[in-house]
């Protein structure tokens, strides 16, 4: 238990992490470093997407299963780990460097 907390805090303490969200199965954030509206939005939007992704993966091979869904965008990277009873979301943000 404490270890889990510790790990989560370690993750959150990373410089590049914009925030983490732990949401329950209904898409309601239980624990989040974002403010609640943003967290709710992330959770709600992502759970449909992950359900779809999971369905896709398992359609191809029912014995396979989705572990992590990573979405890299221009500004950030969103990592979602879906499970039956919860959703773990991690948002990592970076600064892009202008290439010479």
């Amino acid at each position, binding site marked *: 238990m404490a270890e889990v907390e510790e790990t989560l805090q*370690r993750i959150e303490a990373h410089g590049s992490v914009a925030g983490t969200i732990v949401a329950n*199965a209904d898409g309601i954030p239980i624990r989040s470093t974002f403010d609640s509206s943003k967290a709710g939005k992330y959770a709600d939007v992502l759970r449909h997407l992950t359900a779809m992704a999971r369905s896709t993966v398992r*359609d191809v091979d029912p014995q396979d299963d989705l572990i992590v869904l990573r979405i890299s965008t221009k500004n950030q*990277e969103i990592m979602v*780990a879906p*499970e039956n009873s919860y959703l773990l979301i991690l948002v990592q943000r970076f600064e892009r460097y202008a290439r010479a």
Partner: protein
Amino acid sequence: MKRNSSTLTASSRAMKRSTSGMQRVLHSSRYTGSFAGFHSRKGSRMLSDSKMGRSLAQRKAIRVLDEDGNDVTPRPLYEPEPKDPHAKPQRSFFDDYYSRWDTSKSSSFSIVPSSGSRWNSSLPSISTRASLASQSGVGFSKLDTSQPLETARQVVSQQTPEEIPLDEVLSIYMTETDTIILLDLPSTCMSEEAENAQATKESNILYIELCNNRLGNDKYVERAMQTFVGAAKHKKVQSEKIVMHDQGTIATIWEIFDSFQNEAPKAEKANAVESMVDISKDPKRLGSFSSISTVGTASTGSSLFKMQGGDMSDEPELQVIFKSETFQRNLLIMERCLVANIFQPRLAAYRNLPEIKELPAETKPDSEKLTKEDEEEDDEEEEVGEMGNEEPEVKEEEQVKKDEEQVKKEEKEEVEKEEEEKEEEVEEEPDPSLELLWTFSCELTKGWNITCMAWNKQNTDLLAVGYGDFSPGRKGLICCWSIKNLSWPERLYHCHSGITALDFSSSNPDKLAVGMHDGTVAIFSVSDRESRTFLASSIDCRRRHVHPVWHVTWVRQEMSISEEDVVESVMSVSEDGHVLKWLLCSHGLEGIGMLELRRIQDGIKKAEGNKTKREGILVSTATPGLCLDFHPSDPTIYLAGTSEGVIHKCSVSNHHHYLALYQKHLCPVNQVQWSPFSPDVFLSGSADWTVQLWKEGCLTPVMGFTSIQSPVLSARWSPLWPSVFAAIKSEQLEIWDLNASLLDPVIVEPAARGLNLTSMLFARGSNCILVGDSSGQVNFYRIQNLSVGPDKTVPSLEELIHFPSSTS
């Protein structure tokens, strides 16, 4: 069919009499107020009264017998179950119709006609019976209906056991039944030639006269009637709202698969094939991610409530989630993803993978250093501190091994130096150099002195690092780092004493043998996340070390040929001079003495020609053993280096004597290692500032290497290049390439200011080298531009030894 001549013998007389009356009854029912009907009604009533009374008095079941005496009792249409106490025979239409004009039960009886009256007797009779039953009420119904029922049933049941013989010729009589009239609307007109024509005519005339006389006649009075219209009463009924839920599912392949896995309970859900457009209506199998329209709104409502209502309901949920193993595993994966994202270029460099462009970099406090570095490196290696992914979709953990650049403030100087070097040599053939990839370090390990490192034999990403100080009483720490997560060790073990030696087993890859400063040899199992302590230790063993254990190795000991078991045991050498072999038994470690290293004293010099031979004589005093190395191909031969500077070559089978002595060093030999490429060449590093290259069989070293005047703490061969080895001194790391130069190391990497380098390890499968220092950091360097690339032909070490070539 049998002749259905069911004449009710009991009441036939009555029937005949009332037949005509019945006809008139019908008439009268249409013309209300007709006298004829009235009379007939009366008559019929009287008749039926008597009949009724008789029937009531009898209280018996009515049985109808035909001419032959057969029981042709018509069965009721409705046969209530005998067990059902509430079953009441339903009143047929006829009951209602006829019972309306007669409150007493008489009328029903009168209606029962014979077959001659063109009515099917069975119907009304049933109704009679039924109505009788219902109206009387008091237990009568039961007796009445049940008895014929039972008899009928009995009859039926009696019939079934009898089997109709098939061989007999059955004669079947077909007869025409009586005409069944369902509706009879007699005409209102009569024929002139009918019998009653005259009578009817007369009555018609009478009637007309009557109508004419009505007006103005005193006999007839106009009367008005008014019916009361009762006050209407509104009655409303409201039922509870029936909540409807929409539920849909798509029979996806995985769902069918899952249902087969789980069999019965889920089977019903899996087979519901409804085509729903909205994919969000997934069944609960997906873990109640089902968003149903009605439920969806409800849940948002409840979610608002929940969020406002405080965390009371969320807390236990959070706890439950935290406890689940999958959560922990996911966290682990996430952390690795995260870190990998940051360190992508470096990890790629480590694994010789191409780097991903356009990866955003981490914003760090020393970001300007990063940019500067980036600009410089841009020219050469196109490494930009950016991040990206190959596929933005599902990714396995293993694919997330990308490299990263991470610059720590302590290594800034070194890195800048490297870059300067690199910049200078951009156009020409670059000099061999080391590039810092990353550092294993965390708060827990800061300040600890690294004493030893070992790679896991199976999982090439796992590195065990031992931390310990050599002051007594100071604790030790073992960290298992994984390359997948550069920021935090996978495992952390606290030990009661400083760690001095580490080795992973090859047959049980999760076993880690540890040698400690107080002489304890312990075995850890790394695979178990939960365990915090060792599996077995030698603390309580009878035979154990009491001095620091300087080296542990797992050795495969093959048993006799019949047993194909390869038992692995731990060999340890310690400062008390003993070489012990440890076996892991059920009750812990068991130590077996192998050898005792003795002091060697120079014996008598024998002059044999020009050579002076020195024979060593064993003295009984034990000498501290500092290092141990088994021959790579012959597990019975090993080398032990002592603090005298003598290297003993020993055999596992010989417990008392050495096989050969290699004497050259004047100071303690800190490391011996066989060459992984040449079977009879080994290297030794000693505190007398030299590294010596030996060939087996030759008692003097073939070559010696010195650089700065500092004890060599460790010397190891490179696993990739046969002519490359590395030596570590407390101020610098040296990489020697015998192909390039025999006099100087090819690469010299000085330690950061204030730090002492203490241990070194080559990385497997990669051209990287690890250096541990006294501040608890393990630095990963990549060796670059060594002239002995894998694509260049490498002359074997033998040739080098025999024909040392001097190159610039």
